[in-house]
């Protein structure tokens, strides 16, 4: 059984840098006999969900992390060892992206230190020079045993000498070197695609790209045996990769929805509060005399909500809708939420699902292992008021307007690739 674990992989979620999807990477890794793969996309963890799918499909474990390029030029791979560290990593990325704006991430070494507890930091060096010496000292001081130095073959002149010097410098600074592959794609045949996406990123054509292309060779995923053969002179660096993999036990499955605490709960559980609210609303709606079919439907819905633990989510939506009613801002629930009698009675939607014989299971069901989405439209002119209220109530750093990962659709992709290859637009 091979010990090496690949820890420097960028998928195509490193937009216009990587050239393979996480699924492809994990499928290739499993075929080659990798036991785990560290996914460290550029300033992002956007690829981990697909990576997790890859893990479930192939059995090759995903070690979720991220690669950050600091403002002072050093590059780090950060891997969380547990769930708390994962939260710190995502906080760190949010901080950098908040500063950098679209498509950029501005981080300093001090930020990494501030959020670095429980993170494993792998410094990716360029040349063994005085600058690196300082960075190694910082790494040792800030991360101790959790700091590593990446060694990877670039296929450039004097490579062996470079690696031996890096190894020596790391040991002198008390930092353990770790072998990595610096992977950008899963098979060698993706090299051309990688050149093309680099040209798109640099907004130029492939002919004019020059030295802005990735100049280090051999960026495809290699088998663990091949990596161990290459790093035969650095057995401890291979060992270190396995040690890092052992320490990083965080699994995406540990992440759960964390619902906010709502004031209406007032000492009760969320489910109790929701039940009370719904019953009050029903009594008001039917003037005290709730028909039995409604009573049964409400009990059925509340039962399912209870079993799946979605009650706090309903309370939050209810709070937002109630606030907008209080302010006299028009709002209207739409979509599948209209199938729910609870939503109807709480006033989130305005269609009576029983009168129209709508099926609740199309909204929430035990089969679907994810919370329902309740779409609510607000009056266009005054929507901003509600957004501001949400910021005030839940905190600016706990609310977000939708976050979207940029990607190409077929038409755009063909247009961009055509441009990169120099075809007339």
């Amino acid at each position: 059984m091979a010990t090496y674990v690949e820890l420097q992989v960028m998928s195509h979620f490193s937009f216009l840098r990587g050239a393979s999807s996480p699924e492809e990477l994990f499928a290739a890794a499993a075929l080659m006999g990798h036991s785990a793969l560290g996914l460290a996309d550029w300033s992002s963890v956007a690829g981990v969900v697909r990576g997790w799918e890859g893990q479930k499909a192939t059995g090759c474990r995903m070690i979720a992390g991220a690669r950050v390029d600091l403002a002072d030029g050093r590059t780090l791979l950060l891997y969380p060892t547990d769930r708390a560290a994962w939260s710190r990593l995502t906080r760190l990325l949010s901080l950098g992206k908040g500063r950098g704006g679209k498509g950029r991430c501005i981080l300093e070494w001090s930020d990494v230190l501030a959020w670095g507890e429980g993170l494993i930091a792998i410094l990716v060096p360029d040349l063994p020079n005085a600058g690196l010496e300082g960075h190694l000292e910082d790494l040792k001081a800030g991360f101790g045993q959790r700091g590593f130095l990446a060694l990877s073959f670039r296929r450039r002149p004097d490579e062996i000498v470079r690696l031996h010097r890096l190894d020596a410098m790391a040991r002198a600074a008390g930092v353990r070197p770790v072998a990595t592959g610096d992977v950008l794609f899963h098979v060698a045949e993706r090299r051309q695609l990688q050149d093309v996406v680099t040209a798109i990123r640099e907004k130029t054509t492939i002919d004019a790209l020059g030295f802005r292309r990735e100049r280090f060779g051999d960026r495809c995923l290699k088998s663990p045996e091949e990596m161990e053969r290459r790093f035969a002179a650095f057995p401890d660096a291979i060992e270190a990769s396995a040690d890092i993999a052992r320490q990083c036990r965080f699994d995406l499955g540990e992440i759960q929805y964390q619902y906010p605490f709502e004031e209406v709960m007032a000492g009760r559980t969320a489910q109790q509060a929701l039940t009370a609210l719904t019953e009050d609303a029903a009594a008001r709606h039917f003037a005290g005399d709730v028909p039995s079919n409604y009573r049964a439907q409400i009990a059925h819905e509340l039962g399912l909500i209870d079993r799946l633990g979605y009650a706090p989510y309903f309370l939050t939506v209810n709070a937002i809708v109630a606030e907008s009613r209080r302010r006299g801002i028009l709002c209207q629930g739409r979509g599948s939420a209209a199938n729910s009698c609870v939503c109807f009675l709480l006033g989130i939607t305005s269609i009576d699902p029983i009168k129209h014989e709508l099926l609740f299971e199309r909204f929430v069901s035990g089969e679907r292992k994810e919370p329902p989405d309740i779409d609510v439209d607000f009056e266009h002119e005054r929507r901003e008021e509600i957004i501001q209220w949400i910021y005030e109530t839940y905190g600016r750093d706990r609310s977000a307007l939708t976050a979207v990962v940029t990607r190409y659709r077929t038409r755009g992709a063909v247009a961009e690739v055509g441009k990169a290859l120099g075809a007339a637009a």
Partner: protein
Amino acid sequence: MREMGRRSEAAEHPFRAMAPDDGAPPAGPWNPVAKACASRPTILIERSGQREVVTAACPLALELGLRRGMAVAHARALIADLDVQDADREGDQAILDRLALHAVRHWTPIACPSGTDGLWLDVTGATHLFGGEAQFCARLLRFLKRIGFSATIAIAGTPGAAHALARYGDKAIALLPGGCEAQALAELPLASLRLTPHALQTAARFGLERVGDLYPMARGPLAKRLGLDAVQSLDQARGLVSEPIEPVVPFELPSATRGLLEPILTAEAIEQVIGDLVADLVDDLRSRALGVRALALTCLRVDGEPQIIALGTSKASRDVNHLRRMLSMRIERIDPGLGIETMTLAAPRTELLHSEAFAATLAGDQGGSDIAQLVDQLGGRVGEAGLFKMTSVESDVPERAVRRAGPLAEAQGWPAWPRPARLLERPEALSNVVALLPDHPPRRFGWRGKSYRVVAGDGPERVPGEWWRNSREMWAVRDYFRVEAETGERFWVFRRGDGVDAPTGDLSWHMHGMFG
């Protein structure tokens, strides 16, 4: 007002000449374009940001409802059989400039292009030469039609009014009596005033549509809403503020001529005349702040046969000694025959060259000496093509990493990675190579009939083929190794293929260079 009474004229051609399909600008008289757009509706387009916009439409297309500013996709959807061509702004501008020059030479001393589609002519006191304003305009239209343009012409007391009437009036020739600018403009749309798009948008929001709408408005608020420029162009159009036209000045080739009393035959005499001609030319150049990039010396012989010497300089120059030396070097190429009676020195190519202050040389600071003159002299002896400088190209393939550049070109830096002192023009195959796969340097190899034992090696440096250049390099990979032979020589050898995948190469070994 000072400018009142001057007569400005703006001519516009709603549909400009089509460039011929081969892309070459029409030489001499402009090609008639009537036939270019006779059969099919034709539009010119231009990209603006993400979308393509119609910049001009032929009369046929205009009739079918296509308009300037329309999205091209929309136009194509409206008309199936549409001829779409790219607009050539630079070409249009060049034609407009030539038209302005023509106007200066033939009609009036003050003329210049106006915007991208018009010409200003200040015809004050010039039209009587052509039989009055109406006659002049008719003649102008005929001329433009002959060379393939349709146009509208307006004559007014201010450039702004003429601009507006020519573009937004309804007559092909509009003659506005002096002093009526304000009334004539009142009914025209605001766009006729040369406002910025932003000012136009703002005006539309306030419900201002006609120029006349602006007359009663207070100037302060108007300037605040639409910008000072808007108020200024309104005043200029009405003649309240002057708007001088910056005329184009026709460029005359700098040249000097000497007619000789006695035909000359000897090199010394020719050299003497060259010296005089150069001095005359340099005087002319200095007064116009120009420097020579190309010189042509024409010696007219008694028998009417011209002898021409042409030379170029690598940098604009008007140094008497330098130019004289360069010409003298070529005297031997002149065949005086029975004698030369006229010599003309012209500078067909010049560049702006302003006087430069001498660098302070107090501290014995020599600075970098200018090699341009040396380059010219060497070029005169060995030919321009024989002089070059090597510069790097951003490519990892060694054969493509260098190229020749002009002797005065700025050379790019050299790669940080070690490269052999001598690169073989063509890689030479090695024989009897013993090497371990996939990534070890060879142990021994034979080259040019000699066998070498390798004692040290570094590599591989992996150079992938540049697949975008040709399809054979799609998968090709070269692995370069630096090897040191037992005898002390260091070589740069490579293997075709990465040693793992067959399509990357046939694993043959080659010698590509030697280190010093």
